[in-house]
């Protein structure tokens, strides 16, 4: 067992924070799903809106979840300021050139996974084409949030 030394202004994050944060993320995700399910079942207006704008609604839901997770992580880790939080989370520095080259490796890895699916080693999931059918704005929103925030479908 070891602890990372940090300046006085920072809170030392430990496994306890990691477990609490993980649990908070899981529970918040579950609660958000349940709340949406209840709203969908209980409100005809909401259900109609979701049916009419299903792609946009899902994109909004994932964006909302991302904001909620960020807020929870900040709250759970007990940081005194947003600046300190960003510093400890590693978001106060730009990525470096090694990171840029590693991103190309990610692209290669993604192509490799796509090839595996193409060769029949995995299942094809194609939400991208479904979103594309949803229209221009839906598609752009989908690409932005999927590329930057999440990837729920690992193989298309």
């Amino acid at each position, binding site marked *: 067992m070891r602890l990372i030394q940090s300046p006085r202004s920072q809170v030392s994050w430990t496994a306890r924070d990691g477990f609490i944060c993980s649990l908070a993320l899981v529970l918040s995700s579950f609660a958000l799903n349940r709340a949406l399910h209840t709203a969908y079942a209980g409100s005809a207006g909401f259900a109609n809106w979701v049916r009419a704008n299903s792609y946009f609604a899902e994109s909004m839901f994932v964006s909302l979840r991302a904001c909620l997770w960020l807020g929870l992580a900040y709250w759970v880790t007990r940081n005194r300021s947003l600046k300190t939080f960003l510093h400890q989370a*590693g978001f106060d520095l730009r*990525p470096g050139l090694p990171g840029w080259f590693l991103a*190309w490796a*990610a692209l290669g890895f993604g192509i490799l996974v796509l090839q595996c699916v193409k060769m029949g080693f995995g299942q094809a999931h194609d939400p991208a084409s479904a979103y594309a059918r949803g229209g221009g704005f839906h598609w752009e929103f989908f690409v932005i949030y999927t590329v930057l925030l999440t990837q729920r*479908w690992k193989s298309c």
Partner: protein
Amino acid sequence: MRGVVYRAFRGTFHLLPSMLLVVGVQTWFHWGLVSQDLVALFSLTIGGVALCLIREHRRSAWNCVLFHALYNAAMLRQWSLCVIGMIIALGWCACRPRPRTDA
């Protein structure tokens, strides 16, 4: 996940247990997919380990974001977005902020 949860686990545990815990949490969030597709499970695990290693060796968590974003763009077959994104990212990665000079 890598920014906070992994860093928190690393505050107490060594590299391997921290990676396992983070990949475990990550798998929970993708359970619907990985439970029925071995390729997805494989790519998720390899990707998760790679992200943890990047976070371990690079100070900035933006490296992980860049890695994940390129993987996601590849999965969506957004090749033009990959190229444009990488050109913008190169400028961002290569330009160092000027040191502050107090007048």
